[in-house]
């Protein structure tokens, strides 16, 4: 089981069907039936993916007993996007420092 919110988000995003469901939800809320159609999957199979997404906080479900429309929750996705950006920035900044540090080492060697 994922131990922190970001890991739960990554685990939920690790499946292409779930990513496609999220992409569909950027158009607006949809019911399980509407979400099942493009995937040639049964309602229960889609519901299983939806439960994973809901647990990760990536979607929320409406309260109307029959329809329970699914809605995209953007905050965890934004955290993932920020993390990916931070990761790249972390290494870029570190290697920039390493450039300078290597020059210092070279001068010391001489």
């Amino acid at each position: 089981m994922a131990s922190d919110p970001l890991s739960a988000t990554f685990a939920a995003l690790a499946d292409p069907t779930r990513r496609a469901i999220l992409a569909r939800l950027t158009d607006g809320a949809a019911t399980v039936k509407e979400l099942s159609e493009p995937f040639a999957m049964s309602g229960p199979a889609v519901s299983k993916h939806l439960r994973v997404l809901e647990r990760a906080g990536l979607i929320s479900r409406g309260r109307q007993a029959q329809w329970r429309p699914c809605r995209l929750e953007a905050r965890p996705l934004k955290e993932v996007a920020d993390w990916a950006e931070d990761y790249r920035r972390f290494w870029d900044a570190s290697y920039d420092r390493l450039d300078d540090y290597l020059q210092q080492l070279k001068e010391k060697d001489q």
Partner: protein
Amino acid sequence: MTIAGATTYTTPSEREFAMTRVFDAPRELVFAALTSPEHVPHWLLGPDGWSMTVCEIDLRPGGAWRFAWRRDDGTELELSGEYREIVPPERIVQTESWGAGWAETLNTLALIEEDGRTTMTQTMLYPSQEARDAALQTGMKDGASMSFDRLASYLESLS
């Protein structure tokens, strides 16, 4: 063609992600700077505001390594793994993990020297394409024929 001072990010295979960078220094020096606890805390610091709080390197096959950082605002970050193969000054194979719940990667570092400059390639092998895509968020771009570009621009509109 990779130029000094710029990091290139590529995906050499479905399960890999690679970073390439050219350093204006011979590879003996680059290898030392990358592997010595005396050198690493001087540069492996990320953007301004981070400091390195732990730098443990047991440079031998089976030896453990652990790095930790703290940012001014109290945010902490930890990376750890185990060395598998060490061929100074040209190659290191090691595992890397960001902690529980994260995919562990197998990283291969290669250093090639030419005319006094060193090309470093760090290749990270993920347990699956899904794990790599989730970690890099590149899965956002293919999303089973659905438009994840829209999601990407939606995310941009939030920031």
